[in-house]
């Protein structure tokens, strides 16, 4: 065990993991929606740090940009627009929580257990050998060009559909009016 602690990367890991774990717990237990969202930012930020530790820079920055830059802002907008109670709210959870906790616990046993049985004490031996962003870009546009193109359609569909669904409907009369305006 002392060997493990003698490895500086592990200290970094420990700190990041602790931050991630604590913020993740707060995400699911906080009684304040905004706090939850901000803790999610923290968890994701620390995850990005973890990715840097694993020398996956590109993914780390994508995570920061996409999540912290865009998704969380979206969330905060969502929270504001839906006027979710931003203050502490004890009614945030179902009662009793035990069945949910049980299910989550079983899930943890299964997911963590499979990792433990499969990889035991195998090590990440090439921690520092980062995959270059160049390779990722090349791969994305070579081997994974089809999913790359398809995912753009996923985003487009989500965008178009999301706007259509979320926007307030004008009454038919109003629509007619705007249309006439446009045509005029």
């Amino acid at each position, binding site marked *: 065990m002392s060997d*493990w602690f003698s490895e*500086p990367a592990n200290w970094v890991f420990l700190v990041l993991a602790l931050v*991630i*774990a604590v913020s*993740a717990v707060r*995400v*699911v237990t906080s009684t304040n*929606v905004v706090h*939850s*969202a901000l803790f*999610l930012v923290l968890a994701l930020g620390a*995850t990005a740090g973890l*990715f840097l530790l694993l020398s*996956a*820079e*590109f*993914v780390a920055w*994508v995570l920061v940009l*996409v999540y912290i830059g*865009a*998704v969380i802002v*979206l969330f905060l*907008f*969502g*929270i504001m*627009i*839906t*006027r*979710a109670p931003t203050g502490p709210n004890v*009614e*945030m959870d*179902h009662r009793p929580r035990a069945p949910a*906790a049980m299910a989550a*616990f079983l*899930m943890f046993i299964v*997911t*963590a257990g499979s*990792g433990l049985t499969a990889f*035991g*004490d*195998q*090590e*990440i*031996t*090439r*921690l*520092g050998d*980062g*995959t270059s962003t160049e390779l*990722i870009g090349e*791969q994305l546009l070579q*081997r994974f060009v089809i999913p790359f193109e398809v*995912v753009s359609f*996923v*985003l487009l*569909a*989500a965008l178009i559909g*999301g*706007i259509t669904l*979320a926007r307030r409907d004008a009454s038919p009369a109003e629509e007619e009016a705007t249309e006439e305006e446009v045509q005029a």
Partner: protein
Amino acid sequence: MPLLRRRKPRKKRCRHDSKELEARGLELRIPEGGELVLLNQFLILGALLFSLGVYGLLVRRNAVMVLLSIELMLNAVNVNLVAFESFLRNAGAGGQIFAIFVITVAAAEVGIGLAIILLIFRNRTSANVDELDLMKW
């Protein structure tokens, strides 16, 4: 640029000989010294995130909170994928690319989810998922 670059070879800790690795079909991986960073520490963190996400999904009443929990679960997958990628380090960078796709898809999902939540909120002035049981049995 990697955050930590350690090149000090520590051969004695290497638990895998190349033969075993070949048997695993990972000929691309060149053992150059263990660093005692276990794969499992990442996987267990991933499992923890995933399970916490499950807990939040099951227990939160507000739909936005449920969505936040789902983001935790998807993030757990990213942790797994990136950790596996550094563990395997095969030339394709598949794990990282997979993670990028997961992030993108998750973003799309958040957009869709918030649109739906907004719609429901407008119609019912509440975003609590447990109040939605018009249809059952």
